[in-house]
């Protein structure tokens, strides 16, 4: 049913720490791996070894440069996947009822057996969280690893989304935003967790933690600078003599 629930019992989602993310793409790979081997149609690749490889990904990492006058430029790596919006525009546009938001935990899912692959949900999503699989012709999106988080066949430590489990920097956190005492609620409150494109009123569940302010250096130069010997500009010693003698002989290649 494409009518959105009035409210959900839990609000499961992710906190992504833009201060900590190192842009290694491990979350992209683990996501692709888990979601190709498990729930639903595999995430296909087209022309994977050719000139222009293309494939379906539920999570992609962008890299941005942030500049501000008088400051050094900052690089911010930016993982992006479904934000499991409370006011999910992708769900209500679905003509078949394949897209739905779960009442019990707020996860937005696609029932692939009902999906006609019209692509309208991808058009309705501001974030590019949905991708039409080119081999299967059905819409793929982040499931919040619904087949891991409740999976009692897995050790408890693995019952988190694959991207969270694999992140070597600890930049991704999974939890219930409906519980004010949860890890994700506390992190959001402490660090000023933010919504992406709030002007579109999608009410995303996932929050992004902004990069922390960088510290500053109040001195003119490094305290170690006086102890550094100047670097020789001319070669000296035997190699210097050899270089000069060889340069006198004709036949050197022109160098730029």
């Amino acid at each position: 049913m494409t009518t959105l629930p009035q409210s959900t019992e839990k609000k499961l989602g992710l906190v992504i720490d833009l201060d900590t993310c190192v842009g290694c793409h491990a979350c992209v790979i683990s996501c692709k791996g888990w979601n190709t081997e498990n729930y639903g149609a595999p995430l296909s690749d087209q022309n994977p070894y050719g000139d222009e490889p293309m494939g379906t990904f539920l999570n992609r990492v962008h890299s941005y440069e942030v500049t501000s006058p008088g400051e050094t430029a900052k690089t911010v790596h930016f993982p992006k996947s479904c934000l499991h919006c409370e006011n999910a525009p992708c769900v209500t546009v679905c003509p078949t009822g394949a897209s739905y938001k779960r009442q019990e935990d707020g996860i937005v899912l696609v029932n692939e057996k009902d999906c006609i692959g019209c692509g309208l949900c991808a058009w309705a999503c501001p974030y590019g969280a949905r991708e039409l699989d080119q081999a299967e012709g059905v819409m793929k999106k982040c499931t919040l690893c619904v087949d891991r988080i409740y999976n009692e066949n897995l050790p408890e430590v693995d019952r988190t989304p694959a991207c969270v489990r694999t992140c070597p920097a600890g930049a991704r956190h999974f939890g219930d935003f409906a519980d004010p005492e949860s890890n994700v609620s506390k992190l959001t409150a402490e660090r000023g967790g933010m919504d992406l494109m709030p002007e579109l009123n999608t009410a995303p569940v996932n929050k992004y933690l902004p990069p922390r302010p960088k510290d500053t250096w109040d001195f003119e130069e490094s305290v170690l600078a006086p102890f550094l010997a100047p670097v020789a500009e001319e070669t000296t010693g035997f190699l210097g003599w050899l270089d000069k003698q060889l340069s006198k002989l004709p036949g050197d290649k022109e160098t730029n």
Partner: protein
Amino acid sequence: MHPAPSVIIFTTLSGIGFGMLAWLGIDATPPQGWVAFAFFFIAYALAVGGLISSTFHLGHPERALKAFTQWRTSWLSREGVCAVAGLCVIGLYAAALIFLGTHLPILGWIGAALSLLTVFTTSMIYGQLATIPRWNTPLTSVLYLAYALTGGALLTGRVSIAITLLLVTTAVQIMWWLRGDKAFADRGSSLETATGLGNLGTVRSVAHPHTSPNYLMKEFIHVVGRKHAQKLRIISLILMAGLPILLLSIHVGHIFALLAVLSHVAGVATSRWLFFAEAEHTVGLYYGMR
């Protein structure tokens, strides 16, 4: 947005087809017998042909029947319901005219209303999308209805009405373009709001997630096609309205009418190509492109 031929053909032909059905439905003295057959055949060919074309871009067209179920929330589903209802009602109305020589005006009016409702639902599929500010306006519905009524009047031989509507549609189209050119900036979405990093400074995309274009870029970013947009706008207006008005003013006859219709359809298709090619989706922001 990627201008997919199937969707351009669909909106162009179905719009004109349903416009024809609307005019035929409210006609106080509709054609009967073989003449009625010819008019309804053309209208159905356009309306149904367009609908069939729209299924070509589906990943699983065999499941299309499921699209009739979610009319409570989905404009695409409502479009399907309205289209089938309209075609059924007008079908009965047409059969009575063709085979019995009987005019059933109430059925005609209901069918006409459903036909225009179908065009309205089509327009809302695009008009509802906050992600594409250029489309996200009630003017999009006005535009689609204007095109449908104009094409319908032209193809059902209502010459004086058609000339007036061609001028009205030209005005609506120009208004829609002028609003659309400012729409993205007016909405206020930028790479800064998209990343939430605006407080820190100006944001620039330095590396895409992958080395070559993906589905999102192919579907939502269509920069190349916008190069000749201004010229194509003028061409579309000349073909859609200018030439047809000229031809209809010179002489009313089958050949001139046919030329006017062909020119009009080509103009509408050009406008629809621009409708998609010029549309900028917020996903483009993440890639530093629009």
